[in-house]
C-alpha cells in the first residue's frame, strides 16, 4: 500500500501551489516592463520642465550622460543573462583600457585604441577562464580581480595620472589630440559620437543576442547550467565569449571616459559597476539568468538617465539624488520580482 502511494507521489506532476494572479494588467506590465516607466518618466519630465524636456540641449545632455553606462550595459547584459549575476571588475576594466590606450598613444591613434580594447579582452579572458572553466563564484572572483588589477596599475604607474600629450612624442601630438577629441565630437553638430557608438553597440549586441547561436545557447546556460551542459553545449566556450564581449565593451567605455576626462588613472570608472547593474536590472533582465532582452536594457539605460535628468529639473543636488535613486531602484526591482512571482515565472 505504502509503495503504491509512494509511486503516486513520485509520478504525480508537480503542481505549483503558490498563489498566482494572471490578469491583463500583470501580463501587460510583465511584457512591456520598463517602457511603461520610460513613458511615465517622459510625462513627468514634460510636466516638471514645463515643456523643455524635448529641447535639443536637454536630449543631448540625457544621451551624453547615459552613453558610457550604455556602452558598459551592452556587454554586461551577457554576463547577467548567462546567470553570473554581475561583473564587479567593470571599473578596473574601464581604467585598464584607458590607461593602456593612453600609454600606447605612440603607436598612433588606431594602435592605441586597439591596445586598449585588447587590455579589456585580456581581463575578459581571465574572468571567463576562472568562471567558465573553473566555476568560481562570479561576484567574489570579479571583486578579487578588481582589487588585484587595481594594485598592479597602482604599483606599475605609481598611482599617477597619465596624460596623453606628455607621453606622446613630438610627431605623435596629433594622435593625442585626436584621442582627446573623440568624446567631444558631434556628428552633424547635433548628436554626440559617444551616443552614436552606444547605439551601434546596442545594435550589434541585439544582433548577437537574437540572430546567432551564441545568444540562444547563452539563454539555455542562463536558465539551467546543468541542462545546457548535458545537451552538449560547450559552456566554457560560451561563457568565455560572454566575458570577452563584456571586457571589450567596458574597455570601449573606459577609452571614451579617459578621453573625456583628458587623463587616465586607476580610479577611472569608479561606480560604473553599480550604475550599469542598476540600468540592467531596471530593464527587466533577471538576475537568475536567461530572461531579458536588449530592448529592455536600452529602456533601463534611458530610464536611468531620464530619472537623473528629471531630478536635476526638480532642483535636487548631486548627492540628495542618491536617496531618490535608491528608493526608486528598490521599488522597481520589487515590482519586477513581484509581477514575475504573481505570474508564476520565477
Amino acid at each position, binding site marked *: 500500500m505504502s509503495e503504491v502511494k509512494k509511486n503516486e507521489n513520485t509520478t504525480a506532476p508537480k503542481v505549483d501551489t503558490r498563489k498566482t494572479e494572471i490578469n491583463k494588467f500583470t501580463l501587460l506590465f510583465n511584457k512591456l516592463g520598463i517602457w511603461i516607466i520610460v513613458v511615465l518618466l517622459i510625462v513627468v519630465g514634460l510636466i516638471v520642465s514645463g515643456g523643455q524636456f524635448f529641447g535639443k540641449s536637454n536630449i543631448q545632455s540625457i544621451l551624453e550622460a547615459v552613453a558610457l553606462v550604455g556602452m558598459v550595459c551592452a556587454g554586461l547584459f551577457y554576463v547577467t543573462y548567462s546567470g553570473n*549575476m*554581475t561583473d564587479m571588475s567593470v571599473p578596473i576594466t574601464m581604467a585598464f583600457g584607458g590607461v593602456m590606450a593612453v600609454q600606447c598613444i605612440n603607436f598612433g591613434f588606431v594602435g592605441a585604441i586597439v591596445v586598449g580594447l585588447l587590455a579589456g579582452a585580456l581581463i575578459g579572458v581571465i574572468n571567463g577562464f*576562472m568562471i567558465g*572553466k*573553473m*566555476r*568560481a*563564484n562570479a*561576484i*567574489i*572572483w570579479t*571583486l*578579487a*580581480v578588481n*582589487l*588585484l*588589477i*587595481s*594594485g*598592479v596599475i*597602482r*604599483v606599475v604607474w*605609481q*598611482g599617477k595620472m597619465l596624460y596623453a600629450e606628455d607621453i606622446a612624442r613630438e610627431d605623435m601630438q596629433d594622435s593625442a589630440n585626436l584621442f582627446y577629441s573623440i568624446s567631444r565630437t558631434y556628428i552633424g553638430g547635433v548628436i554626440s559620437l559617444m551616443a552614436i557608438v552606444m547605439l551601434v553597440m546596442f545594435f550589434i549586441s541585439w544582433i548577437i543576442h537574437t540572430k546567432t547561436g551564441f545568444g540562444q545557447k547563452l539563454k539555455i546556460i542562463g536558465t539551467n547550467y546543468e541542462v545546457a551542459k548535458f545537451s552538449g553545449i560547450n559552456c566554457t566556450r560560451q561563457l568565455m565569449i560572454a566575458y570577452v564581449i563584456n571586457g571589450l565593451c567596458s574597455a570601449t567605455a573606459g577609452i571614451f571616459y579617459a578621453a573625456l576626462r583628458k587623463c587616465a588613472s586607476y580610479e577611472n570608472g*569608479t561606480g560604473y559597476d*553599480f550604475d550599469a*547593474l*542598476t540600468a540592467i*536590472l531596471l530593464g527587466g533582465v533577471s*538576475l537568475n539568468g536567461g530572461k531579458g532582452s536588449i530592448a529592455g536594457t536600452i529602456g533601463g539605460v534611458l530610464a536611468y538617465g531620464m530619472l537623473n535628468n528629471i531630478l536635476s529639473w526638480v532642483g535636487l*543636488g548631486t*548627492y*540628495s*539624488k*542618491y*536617496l*531618490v*535613486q*535608491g*528608493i526608486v*531602484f*528598490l521599488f522597481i*526591482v*520589487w515590482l519586477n*520580482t*513581484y509581477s514575475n*512571482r504573481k505570474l508564476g515565472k520565477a
Partner: protein
Amino acid sequence: MEKKNFKLNAAFINRNRSYLLLVLIMICGLFAKNFYTPYNIQAVTGNGSLVIWLGLGFTIVLIAGHMDMTVMYMSTFAALLTLGLHADQKLPWLLCVIIGALMGVLNGLIMGLLVTKLKIHAFIASIGMQLVLRGVMYVYCNGKELSIGKDYTWNDMLNGKLIPFLPLSTYFIITTIFIFGVMVILRYTRLGRNIHMVGGNAETAWLAGIKSDMVVIAAFVISGLAAGLGGALNGIYSGAANVTMGEKGISPFYMAFTACVIGGTDIYGGKGSVIWTYVSLIMIAFLKALCKSTELQVLVIGAALVLCLVYETVAKYNRDKVLGRRPNLYIEYKNETGNAK
C-alpha cells in the same frame, strides 16, 4: 572521543592559513624598524578596529548565505550621526553612540525585510540601500567633514590603555570582546547554529522547522548593529568623520571582504567563523603597517586574495572531477589531502 591526528599537509596549511599568515607577517616584522614598539602596536590595532566590525557583519551575513554590502556606508553614517548629534544637539556621548547603533539595527532590519519578505536578492537590495544611505548621509551633513569639537573625554578614553601593561587601546579591546561575544552566539546558541544551517541549505532548514526568515533577519540585524556601533565608536576614536571615508586608498569594504575569504568563510554560506575573519583582519592591519606605500598594500592584499580564491576554486574543480568519474579514487584522494576541501 576521536583523536585528531596531526598531519602537515596542504589541507592543514589551508585550514589554518589565517594564523600562518599572521605568524609570517610577525616574522617579517622582526626585520622592520620600530615595528615591535608598544606605540606602533597600539596604533595599528586601534586603526584596524573599524574594519574588524565591518568584517564581523559581513561574515555573519555570508554565513547565512547572503551578501551585505551596506556595512561600509552604514558605519560612515553612524560616525557622522554620532559626531553631529553631540555637536548640534549637545547630547551626551553614550546616547549618541546608542543612537548610532540603533540606526545600524534599523538598517539591518530593513535589509532583512527586503531580502526575506519582498524576496529581493540580497546583493541587489544592498546596492539599493547603499544608494539610500549615501543620500541620507549627504542630506544630513551636506558633504561637510564633522569633527569631534572640544569634548575629548570619550576620545581619550577610547585611545587610552584599559590595562596598563598591555599596549592595546580600549577601542580595540571593546572590539575583541564584541567579537568573542558574537563567536559564542554563533557557536553555542540555537540562533547561531540556525544561522549556519540556513546558510548551508535554506530549504532543508525550513523543512526542519526553522523559521528561516527570522534567522536571516537576525543575521542582518547583528551585522547592522556591528556596523553602527563600530562606526559610532570609530568616529569618536579618530575624532573626525566625512562622507568619503574609505573611498580613497583601499576601501574598508574590500579589506573586510578579503579577510572573510582569506579566513576561510565559505562563499556559498554555511561555513565560517568570525574568529578567522578577526585574525585575518589583524594580519591585514599589520601588513598595512609593514608596507608603507598604499600602492604596494593594494597589490599585496589583492594577490593574497586571488591566491586564496584560485587555490579554493582549483581544489573544488579537481574534487568535482575526481568525484564525478571515479568515486573510489575520491576516497584515496580524501585520505591523501585530509578532510577539508
